[in-house]
């Protein structure tokens, strides 16, 4: 029995999952935080009158006084730098750990102005879980760089796209989000009891918030009672989303719940709703779009010289960017002639392109490189690119000649 439970536990948490989805979760969390914080969200902590400064226990315990506007501005700048580093995947885990500490500190300070808000707590948990996860193994400049260097030193290893440790961060974050709702429901039962669903409390809060739609709803006590019952039902059943097949239903319920609080009470809690995007199966969605549009069915052969460290590095980068898996790698070194052009691309029409034109063709085929495509056609860039490629090819040919001479 115990062994079966342990096996079930292990399967639930540690079944291999997509590293790309985890990396996208990292980028989404960074995006949410960047939009939420901007560079000004915490500034008023230093700007408000000292009479409003009411440090929460943790701030008081740490002996932190009200900071100056300048201090808050410096913290905001550091946050932006760390967000960029995490988003791009440069020193990702270290930057994430520093970001978590800095964000917690700023949140604690913001909560020391007389009203404690818990709306961003799920984001803090998301940061914590990402720090401890391999979220830096995909969509990360650091990982691309590390793999390219390793490829230059030795044989080209196939990229790892799944990991046993890629599933748990999103699942554990779901538990945090679901607990957020569940605890809210439990609090209603604790402080008000089942009578909370008679709609009287909701009507009171709607009249206090006084939005147009809220005042309309408050005029319909029966509708208030029905909505109260629906809210409490949603909150108390949110935990069912721990079962993955039920999760989309819970998230859809959550989206409706937040839509309701936004329309009727002008309360958004949008960072929590934005976290729902972490549960979109992005990799599967991208694969489906690539197939549906026919994008993935037009393969491209990339001919490279496996004996050249530079070619292996380049191929490693291409493989990292090949999200739609369109590029078919062909190592020509075992068949004799090394390719001094370093990069040859053969399209589905059988046409072979070399050098800069091959590079440009490749950029079209790699979704992660699409951002570069307009630049590659900008006036002056093609001629400069062709000259650089020609120079690099000459140097390679010279080096190959020296090798043969030796």
């Amino acid at each position, binding site marked *: 029995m115990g062994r079966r439970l342990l096996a079930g536990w292990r399967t639930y948490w540690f079944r291999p999952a997509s590293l790309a989805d985890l990396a996208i979760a990292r980028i989404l969390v960074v995006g949410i935080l960047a939009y939420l914080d901007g560079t000004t969200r915490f500034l008023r902590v230093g700007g408000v009158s000292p009479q409003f400064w009411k440090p929460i226990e943790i701030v008081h315990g740490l002996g932190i006084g009200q900071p100056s506007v300048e201090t808050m501005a410096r913290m905001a700048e550091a946050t932006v730098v760390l967000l960029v580093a995490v988003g791009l995947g440069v020193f990702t885990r270290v930057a994430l750990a520093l970001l978590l500490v800095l964000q917690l500190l700023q949140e604690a300070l913001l909560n020391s102005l007389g009203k404690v808000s818990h709306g961003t707590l799920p984001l803090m948990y998301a940061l914590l879980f990402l720090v401890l996860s391999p979220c830096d193994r995909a969509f990360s400049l650091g990982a691309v760089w590390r793999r390219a260097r390793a490829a230059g030193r030795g044989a080209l290893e196939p990229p790892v796209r799944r990991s046993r440790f890629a599933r748990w961060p999103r699942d554990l974050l779901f538990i945090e989000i679901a607990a957020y709702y569940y605890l809210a429901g*439990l609090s209603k039962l604790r402080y008000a009891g089942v009578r909370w669903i008679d709609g*009287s409390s909701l009507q009171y809060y709607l009249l206090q918030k006084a939005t147009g739609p809220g005042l309309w709803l408050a005029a319909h006590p029966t509708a208030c009672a029905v909505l109260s019952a629906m809210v409490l039902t949603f909150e108390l059943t949110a935990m069912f989303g721990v079962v993955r097949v039920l999760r989309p239903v819970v998230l859809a319920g959550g989206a409706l719940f937040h839509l309701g609080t936004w329309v009727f009470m002008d309360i958004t809690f949008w960072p929590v709703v934005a976290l729902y995007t972490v549960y979109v199966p992005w990799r599967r969605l991208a694969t489906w779009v690539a197939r549906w549009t026919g994008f993935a069915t037009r393969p491209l052969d990339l001919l490279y010289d496996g004996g050249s460290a530079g070619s292996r590095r380049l191929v490693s980068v291409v493989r990292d960017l090949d999200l739609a898996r369109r590029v078919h790698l062909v190592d020509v070194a075992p068949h004799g002639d090394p390719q001094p052009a370093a990069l040859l691309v053969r399209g589905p029409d059988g046409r072979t392109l070399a050098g800069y034109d091959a590079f440009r063709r490749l950029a079209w085929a790699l979704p992660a490189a699409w951002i570069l495509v307009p630049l590659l056609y900008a006036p002056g860039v093609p001629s400069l690119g062709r000259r650089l490629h020609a120079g690099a090819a000459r140097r390679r040919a010279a080096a190959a000649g020296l090798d043969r001479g030796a």
Partner: protein
Amino acid sequence: MRPREWLLSLLFVAVIAVKAAEAIFGLETWPLSNVPMFAGYVPRMVTPLRVTLVGTRDGTSWFALSAYDLLLSQDEYERRLPTDARALAAGCGELGRLYNAGRPPSARLVGLYGRIDRVPRPGVPGGPSEPASTVVTCLLSPPSGR
């Protein structure tokens, strides 16, 4: 299970235990919370009250003070506006003085009052059928004699 899986399992259990503790003990110390927003029961006979501070810089045109005027969020601002007339009268003057602090004389308030509006509850028999307001004066200069 491998050592790393055991360590992570400990983390999972710890997170779940924290959530359970928040629920069971009703913990409410940031960053812990049992999420008690809107959890209180408000009987039908309780009348909602809305508080507004209204000020003037020139004695003729009056405007409602907003949370932004004091660099506060809406929630933080509302926390400082008690619905009891005596408490409001005792505290609203300080908010006015904080508004004036650091502002040039031409931008300072010369008059301020607090208004407590009773909001009628639809569908409640015997409740107030018409909105009623209570107005209190806010002292913009500190009380003397103490």
